[in-house]
């Protein structure tokens, strides 16, 4: 009896171990089949999601990609595309969460960083967004790493340009200075350098392209803008004239040329002017500043201000002999300058157009 109990123990023990081995093999096989079938199904759903996203049906695309993710949670592409779809659907908070989950598991994921930056930009969290753009620029990309990093940097540059963050913009531009090869991109780069407050670097780029027939009109305009930014209005005028000649349909260059022309006609500081011409321009400046002032007269006129307005009116009607025109011009310029300062302090703001000839001339006078 005891012997048979022993046999039953050993037999059952051996059978159990055999069952464990068999079950392990069976389970491993079943798990492999399960994984394969799930992967196929997930890929099908993901494909449908991508197609819907391409069609612009973002809500359905999100649902379909989520279904794929439910089945296969290990595919990071699914999550990245989900974040894209969420961004496209305007669900920035959800996109941010998806990107954050991706970054939790891989903090150097370049694409996830870019998606996070895009979501944060949409939400107006610019400093955080800029930080994530940097992570995207220096992060790891599964495919086409250099191109993707460059793309991320240009998105960052766009944001900095929009935010008018000149120093950061210049730092980013310097990093990509040599990168763009095509003419259009180089023109954009030159424009961005201008926006970043570096007209000299912009000129280097534009100058190199003056002989490129595909882009020389834009390059001349860029040169004009660069000279203009450095207050070299005469030189700017010449570049704008060439740009308009090369591309008569270029309204922007034409407008800039017009500003240049007006400015040069108004500027009393231009070299080689006769005393009479300088006097005439000074009277014109008084007339224009008084006009600006009268656009927004102050209600509580101080005696000094009243005296200044009276002086301006007197200057407009004064008959000045040629001998005294030099001194009168100086006096007029002084009146114009004071009126301009008074106008700046007035409650209503000056028009925002910084390129207005009057503003530019008076800015030069006060320098």
């Amino acid at each position, binding site marked *: 009896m005891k012997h048979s109990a*022993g046999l039953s123990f050993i037999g*059952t023990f051996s059978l159990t171990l055999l069952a464990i081995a068999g079950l392990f093999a*069976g389970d*491993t096989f*079943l798990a492999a*089949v399960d994984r394969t079938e799930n992967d196929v199904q997930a890929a099908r759903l993901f494909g449908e999601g991508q197609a819907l996203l391409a069609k612009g049906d973002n809500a359905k695309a999100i649902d379909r990609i989520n279904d794929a993710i439910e089945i296969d*949670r290990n595919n990071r592409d699914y999550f990245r595309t989900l974040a894209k779809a969420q961004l496209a659907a305007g669900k920035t908070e959800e996109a941010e969460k998806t990107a954050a*989950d991706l970054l939790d598991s891989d903090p150097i994921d370049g694409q996830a960083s870019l998606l996070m930056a895009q979501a944060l930009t949409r939400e107006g969290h610019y400093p955080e967004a800029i930080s994530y753009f940097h992570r995207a620029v220096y992060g790891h990309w599964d495919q086409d790493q250099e191109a993707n990093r460059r793309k991320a940097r240009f998105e960052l540059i766009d944001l900095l340009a929009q935010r008018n963050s000149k120093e950061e913009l210049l730092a980013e531009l310097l990093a990509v200075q040599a990168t763009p090869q095509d003419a259009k991109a180089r023109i954009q780069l030159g424009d961005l350098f201008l926006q970043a407050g570096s007209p000299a670097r912009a000129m280097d780029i534009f100058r190199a392209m003056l002989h490129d027939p595909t882009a020389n009109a834009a390059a001349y305009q860029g040169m004009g803008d660069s000279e203009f930014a450095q207050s070299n209005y005469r030189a700017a005028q010449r570049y704008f004239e060439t740009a308009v000649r090369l591309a008569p349909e270029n309204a922007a260059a034409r407008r800039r040329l017009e500003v240049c022309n007006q400015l040069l006609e108004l500027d009393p500081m231009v070299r080689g002017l006769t005393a009479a011409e300088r006097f005439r321009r000074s009277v014109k400046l008084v007339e224009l500043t008084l006009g600006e002032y009268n656009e927004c007269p102050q209600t509580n006129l101080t005696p000094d201000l009243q005296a200044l307005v009276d002086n301006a009116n007197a200057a407009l009607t004064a008959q000045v002999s040629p001998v005294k025109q030099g001194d009168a011009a100086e006096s007029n310029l002084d009146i114009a300058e004071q009126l301009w300062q008074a106008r700046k302090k007035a409650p209503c703001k000056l028009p925002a157009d910084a390129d207005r000839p009057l503003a530019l001339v008076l800015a030069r006078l006060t320098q």
Partner: protein
Amino acid sequence: MIDKIRHSLEKLRHNEDQLTLVLSLVIGALVGLVTVAFILFTGRLAARMYPAGGAGWRRILVPVLGSLSTGYLLYKYFPFARGSGIPQTKAAIFVDDGRILMRTVLGKFFCCSASLASGIALGREGPSVHVGGGLASVVARNMGLSPRQVKALVPAGCAAALAAAFNTPIAAVLFSLEEILGDLHATVLGSVVLSAATSWMVLHLVLGDDPLFHVSGYKLVNPSEFGVYAVLGVVGGLGSVAFVKLLLNLRVWFRTLPKWTVWFQPVAGGLTVGLLGYFVPDVLGVGYNTVDKVLNGNIVIQMVVLLAVLKIIATAVCYASGNAGGIFGPSLFMGAMMGAAVGGVAHAIFPNSTATPGAYALVGMGTAFAGVVRTPLTSVMMIFEITRDYTIIVPLMISNLIAFFISQKLQPEPIYEALEHQDGIHLPSAQSRSDAERTHVYQAMKLAPLVLSPDATVALTLPKVTAGAFDAWPVVSGDGLVGMIKNSQISSAAGNGGGEKHLSEILSLNEELHHNSAEELPHVHPDHSLSLALERMGTSGLNVLPVVSRANVRQLVGVVTLSDILETFGVAKKAGS
């Protein structure tokens, strides 16, 4: 070589501690692999029954056919495989010496698999526990182990099954102790832990480290959220009670139907879930994918409310009508939906001071589990294991306890106990055990009317003891209690001419008193239960025991007699009264 192995196994068979250790590991591995097979098999079967892009009518036809076929199999071949499996496992442990038949194990595996794959709105955890416990029972019995050893291994099988089915080994251990055995201090803790850990390891070996639910790192956004979690506790508690009452009442109703209808009664569940699932597919099956979506905030609030209501109805009808499957998973589903609903409303009203609905869905899962299954410790641990995040624990405990108390108040009988009672089985619950332990020695003890000295002679003592009402008396020296002496010992010594003998000679006392154990010096302490006092009276053959201090076992504080104990229980009157 074979002889050597055989010899080692023989040696193992005779060393109980080593055997328990090895069998815990073996059962853990076996049950883990069977549970993984159950999960995979059910999943593949479900994929065949509901192919991608399948027609809507499948959602009605498949559950109806599934419930019809499994209903017939359960009626004809596997009558013990019906329902969840947890009450059946408990009954096997407490009534049948841990005996669960292999036929029941097979029936549970295949019928549940088919039933769950066809979309019946029940869970896989309860059946897994039954299968796990059953396998442990089958292996242990076939090895020729004693009923005590079989009973000790069944909870290990249950824990192993739950650890693999739900991917939460610690909660599985707690569930096994808290619900299956109803005793958190059970002596089988070691084997239960070993078995659960082995099973969990096997699960990860085969299926990888993918968690059952993918949950973001939810945190308490603002302390005022505790109020919202308290509301969730109330909602979860009321929802749980509604579900339990509906299920129990429906089950009573189904049992009133003629006996010949039993085999197709499950169709009522299949048809209900099919019709609901036709319009709302997420009602079908255990619904963990939907729970996952809700945990990640991917379902709108109206839908989660609808799903909570429909799931309560579908699960109650499916279970009550006799389908194979558990309520563990569905209660988590309902909880997630209720949590997401409460969280959704709170987040809409206070977006800056509340977490997203996913966090509430997560806490809601534990809340409903605490309300339905009534194992608050397991539910807290389970959610902790799912999230692996400590910060969610405090709100979780608040919600769970509120739900637990509401459920206890409105539905005093826990669901598994109520199901057993409907089947005419009355098992010891944790409550009944604590009731038994509620009466203590201090309630029955009194001062010893006579204390004897070891130096007293038999002749002097005999008249005193024969006049007394006790059969034995405490003997106390200057060092304290030295033992109990029976009247019969004193009479016998006197009859044999030993009238001048000292009592110490009869007790054969050593000079040094160092025998302090209950076997050597029968005694009880005032805080001992009366049932223990009775047990010790039986072991020592005394109907009176000395009551001694816990600080000094030699310090006599009183005596307790059999008649005093019986009087305390209200079954006997004092002699002479």
